[in-house]
């Protein structure tokens, strides 16, 4: 089974979450927890790197939706990067590119955060 894992690191004042494996109804609470922790400590410049994300279900997308407002209310943002075509297709189908900035590469998203300052 393609397990789901989140690795967290900081890159130039941006919090990067690297997702790996299957993000579905079963594993969605893990991502929720990660967002909650970041929010609690006011670390709201968040880049989610999807390089090793092999599948995302709508419940997984729901977690992004559930936290974007809170993050933006604290003048942060969630930016998404490095998606495989398969994963991007799901985001695209459900209209996410209208609501989220999606970058080809993590460095572009990090740069965007830092340029803002």
């Amino acid at each position, binding site marked *: 089974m393609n397990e789901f894992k989140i690795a967290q690191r900081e890159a130039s004042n941006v919090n990067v979450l690297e997702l790996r494996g299957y993000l*579905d*109804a*079963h594993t969605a609470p893990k991502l929720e927890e990660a967002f909650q922790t970041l929010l609690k400590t006011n670390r709201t410049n968040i880049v989610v790197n999807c390089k090793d994300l092999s599948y995302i*279900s709508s419940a*997984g*997308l729901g977690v992004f*939706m*559930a936290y974007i407002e809170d993050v933006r209310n604290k003048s942060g943002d969630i930016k998404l990067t490095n998606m495989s075509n398969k994963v991007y297709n799901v985001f695209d189908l*459900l*209209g996410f590119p209208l609501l989220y900035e999606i970058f080809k590469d993590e460095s572009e998203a990090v740069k965007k955060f830092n340029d803002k300052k």
Partner: protein
Amino acid sequence: MATARRTSRSSASSSYESYFEHTALFEFSKVINSSLDPRFIYSHILLTIMGKILSSKGMVIVEKESRHFNVVMAKGFSQDVVGTSMHIRQIPPSIFLVDKVNATKYPWVKFFKRLGVKILLPMYMADTPIGLLAFGERFSKKKLHSREVTYLRSLANISATAIEKSRTFDELQQVNRKLDRKIQELNTLFDLSKEFGSLLDAEKLIRLLEFSLLGQVGVNRYIICLRQGSDVRVAASRVDGPVPQAELLQTLFKLKATVPVAHLSASGVQNARDVLTGLRMALVVPMGLQGENKGLMILGERLSGNPYEEIDYEFLTSLANLAIISLENARLFKEAIEKQRMEDELLIARDIQKGLLPNVLPAIPGFDIAAANISSKQVGGDYYDVIPADNNRHVIAIGDVSGKGTPAALLMASIQASIRALVPLNLSLSELTGRVNDLMCENTGGNKFVTFFWGFVDPVAMTLNYVNAGHNYPYLIHADGSIDRLDKGGMILGVLKTLMPYEEATVRLTHGDLLLLFTDGVSEAMSHDSMEYGEERIEAVLRKYGREPAQRIIELLHEDIIQHADGAQQSDDITMMVLKVA
């Protein structure tokens, strides 16, 4: 050379032009068929023809749906015309000049006249018109030569094919995308059914449902409420403002199918419509189970701004049904666990109670003694005991603890312990009763009580010395048929500390006397129509069967109670003790 000469002989200059035109047509066809992008195709058609006829204005009009045509691109005309929609019933089959067209037959031509269009070029696929190309006046103001007309018709035909191809491709892409979305929805339902099926925690289920709404439907304002009996409970909500009152939500449970909030007035729930509109809610999705609404999902507008369509209703209905089945399962599971827990507790209570009652009653010389305790479903706190004391005396006791289940059984155990500990102290029955009462008051804080009757049977003096602390008066039926009700004593135990000593009394016992101690489970045994068994019937049985042995009397009494109850479930234990003087 010979071939060339033959050609040149047939028609020298026209063949050169024809060669040039064929090459140009071929090039044109190659270019517009190289792309599926309609904008590129429209633009190339316009530029080619505008260059050919030397006109500075061109427009592409394409059929959107049956006989409805839209201006999709304009060059040289004001851009405001792009998007103009018109109804065209009929199009002439060939190229035509606007000024010469019969306006009664083709009323839509007025629109083009007004814009300064001079030449209209229909585009046909076989016999079906798919659009028009419109152009302004030629710079040269020259009429179109018949060769030019033929050439333009060829261009229009090639254009029609290319436009149709790109349109089909576009439709195909849209169908594909819809299909992809359906697959995605199915995946979501499949994914959730797996997850929902394995979850028995209502809170987690609701959270998952929220995620799915957020992710799949793209909605971030919602109310999920569930019906519990006749109440409505909001299980999750994300709204800008206070969640509507339960009474208002209640009215929405009448809905049988998914309904946009804007249509609510038709269902006679106008107030709900106004409140929900105020909260920017857009859709109400009932969560049905076996034809009954068990819950509602009220959804806000979608973040994408796209309205909800029938195709979304299907998904939402499936999602709602899936979720409510799982929520209902979780509820039933919780109930089953709770029921099991209570049954386990009752078993414990029953075990405690049975363990306290004497297995075999000690024999009292010259007496025939028997007792029985039949527990009810809920297990009451009945107690009886026979304890050997000093000088052949025996203590007989019966009591009924308030409440049911384990707490009653435990209190009963403490009473048994205290009387067994106190009896050897050689105190009067009145004093002993006072002490038992005080101990109980200390232990229970006055919120539990016991009705209690006890006494010393003295087989030598042939007496019964007793105290009745608020218990049903025992029957003492003398051999001569006279009856004593043993009512001397005082307060029930456990309510107030002993201020006044309990009154004790002594009755004489003679050969043939019959003593019955019983709890209110006997006198208040209920029939189906809520009739109590009653003391008259107890007395009648005792009078009728008083000569039978003690054990038999108990059996007969029990049989009579069973007959009265006629299968009605009893809420209280039935306990009795019979003592006969041999």
